């Protein structure tokens, strides 16, 4: 772990605060402590997210959970819906789904990953990649991409829309659908709905391949900078299929160390709490998960596309597997450490999801109406899924009146908490060693955070124009320097 998280003498440091000033779903601020020589000594990413939601679920009927949890987020409601659905399956003894129900859930999941990955890459990150991290703020937004690279922008819009249409076909609506119910699904896919999704699918596959090309070429075009930017040695955690394939809906846990050695493998998702602990630190609302076998100091890890790509042995769809092999070759068969490689891994997953959607739409099971199973009622359910941003864990305990007594949600942004702090420190050490804080330097920090696609990316990117207030405060609490950036990009 980098030694800058807690400075040895914070009382003698100046404080630089980077904080969004508008109301968003989840927001963060960055605090940098510099010493008298303006050298960054401490960096912390504070995230305010999901507070109170676990309590909000308590007292509700368990079958309500998959519907209600979708309102956590407007971007990944389907991931929460499915993770909660998997947990509730356990409570009714219905985790061994029928083939049709399983495939419908997978179809919705791949649609969700496709649309969310497209949103993040094309609409939030492409301005950085196409115009440069330190380009003019007026240019660094999706509308500028539409102006200058309309073909890329339109592909992004259509990929996103296609993913939403897949979700709507399976769950009834783009958001807040009600497909997953305890032990299965409540609606079969109609042949007409399937046929609509198949129409023009070749374009989706082609655009997905183009997206991988763009992500890979952007990464490779600026080496060694991109390899070094926010890079770190870490452990990696994800689900994999039992044979080691990339698995996004249902698998077993695998953890690797920075050298690619297995820490554990084949662990049931029902045993997550035996291998993952969460540490509370007094300066952050978010917990810091770690692998219990390694302890809190050495056991932090990364999740999400980079971790999944580093952890899996292969991908079971041909186009994505070919791309993964290039990725593995770049990493010399060791885990790729660069934070910016998240974008590359993310687009390989996008291509994989497109291929999976095609496979599922061609599968006769997808139209079956055999959608429900039942079993023995239990009082506890755990559902784990590889969501867009990484491993998503829902854990519920239910009382005899069918009401949720306890809920524990560990979301991907939480898993990546330590990693995002580390990435910020890396960038801050290199870029923010002056007394004057300018906007391009701030964006480098945002770029590092954004690579992880955290929920606070809404705030940290703002489609290119993140409202910020920057303050330098000395150890006496005196304001030394301040900088404010408004939502229109103007500085004051």
């Amino acid at each position: 772990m980098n030694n800058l998280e807690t400075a040895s003498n914070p009382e003698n440091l100046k404080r630089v605060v980077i904080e969004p000033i508008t109301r968003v779903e989840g927001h963060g601020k960055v605090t940098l402590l510099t010493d008298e020589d303006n050298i960054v000594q401490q960096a912390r990413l504070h995230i305010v997210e999901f507070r109170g939601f676990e309590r909000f679920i308590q007292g509700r009927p368990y079958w309500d959970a998959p519907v209600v949890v979708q309102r956590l987020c407007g971007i990944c409601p389907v991931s929460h819906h499915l993770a909660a659905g998997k947990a509730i399956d356990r409570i009714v003894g219905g985790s061994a789904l029928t083939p049709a129900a399983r495939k419908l859930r997978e179809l919705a999941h791949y649609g969700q990953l496709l649309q969310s990955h497209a949103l993040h890459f094309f609409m939030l990150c492409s301005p950085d990649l196409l115009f440069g991290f330190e380009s003019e703020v007026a240019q660094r937004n999706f509308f500028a991409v539409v102006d200058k690279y309309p073909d890329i922008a339109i592909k992004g819009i259509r990929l996103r829309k296609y993913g939403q249409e897949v979700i709507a076909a399976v769950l009834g609506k783009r958001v807040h659908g009600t497909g997953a119910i305890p032990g299965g699904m409540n609606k079969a896919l109609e042949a007409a709905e399937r046929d609509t999704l198949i129409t023009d699918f070749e374009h989706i596959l082609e655009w997905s391949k183009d997206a991988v090309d763009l992500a890979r070429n952007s990464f490779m075009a600026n080496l060694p900078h991109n390899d070094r930017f926010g890079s770190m040695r870490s452990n990696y955690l994800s689900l994999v299929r039992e044979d080691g394939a990339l698995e996004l809906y249902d698998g077993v846990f695998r953890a690797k160390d920075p050298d690619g050695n297995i820490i554990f493998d084949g662990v049931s998702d029902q045993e997550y709490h035996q291998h993952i602990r969460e540490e509370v630190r007094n300066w952050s609302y978010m917990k810091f998960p770690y692998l219990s076998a390694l302890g809190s100091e050495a056991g932090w890890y990364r999740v999400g596309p980079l971790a999944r790509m580093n952890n899996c042995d292969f991908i079971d769809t041909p186009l994505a597997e070919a791309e993964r092999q290039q990725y593995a070759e770049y990493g010399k068969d060791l885990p790729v450490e660069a934070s910016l490689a998240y974008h590359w891994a993310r687009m390989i997953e996008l291509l994989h999801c497109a291929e999976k959607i095609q496979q599922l739409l061609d599968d006769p099971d997808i139209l079956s109406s055999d959608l429900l199973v039942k079993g023995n009622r239990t009082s506890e359910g755990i559902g784990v899924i590889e969501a867009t941003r990484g491993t998503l864990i829902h854990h519920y305990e239910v009382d005899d009146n069918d009401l949720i007594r306890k809920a524990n949600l560990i979301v991907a942004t939480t898993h990546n908490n330590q990693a995002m702090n580390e990435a910020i420190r890396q960038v801050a050490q290199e870029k923010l060693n002056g007394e004057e804080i300018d906007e391009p330097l701030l964006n480098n920090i945002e770029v590092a955070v954004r690579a992880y696609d955290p929920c606070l990316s809404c705030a940290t990117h703002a489609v290119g124009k993140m409202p910020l207030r920057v303050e330098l405060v000395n150890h006496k609490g005196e304001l030394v320097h301040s900088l404010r950036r408004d939502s229109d990009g103007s500085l004051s």
Partner: protein
Amino acid sequence: MAASADPKLVVFAWGNLSRADDGAGPEIAERLRALRLDELLVIEDMQLQIEHTADIVPGVPVLFIDASVAISEGFALERLKPQPDSSVTTHALCPTALLQLFETTSRRPSPAAFQLHIAAQNFELGEKPGVVNASATEAAWVFLADLLGRPPGDWGQALERSSVERLEPMRSVSATAI
């Protein structure tokens, strides 16, 4: 989403049902879907987002429906024009920016567009809609029911006649005013 091959009106309604008054848009969307009108394309989401530009149909009027703090009670119908975005704070868009994006990506003029503002005050997680918002939602629904009771070919003109160019912040607009 209600499918329609040849809509006469595209409706976008958004918000979060778990956040008190913010659920006004989805509430109205649910009622609109229940009407099962072939000429009405209803799109509900949590936020208005960039890909919604692909749902706009050239030449077909658009009605945006959202909870709003721009008025203190009742509802208001605002005429919208495309505008480059100047207030983006997340990946979510304001309606005028979406219209601008439509013109840029399609290279066609934006259709006539309107926003139905429903007065809202409270957005706390887990709370129910307040009295002011509930009353405003019902008033807005009466207005929409009247609109949709007319021939579909008249919907756009009726919206045009009922709309105002620009909302005055915090100005009260009641159903009877419209």
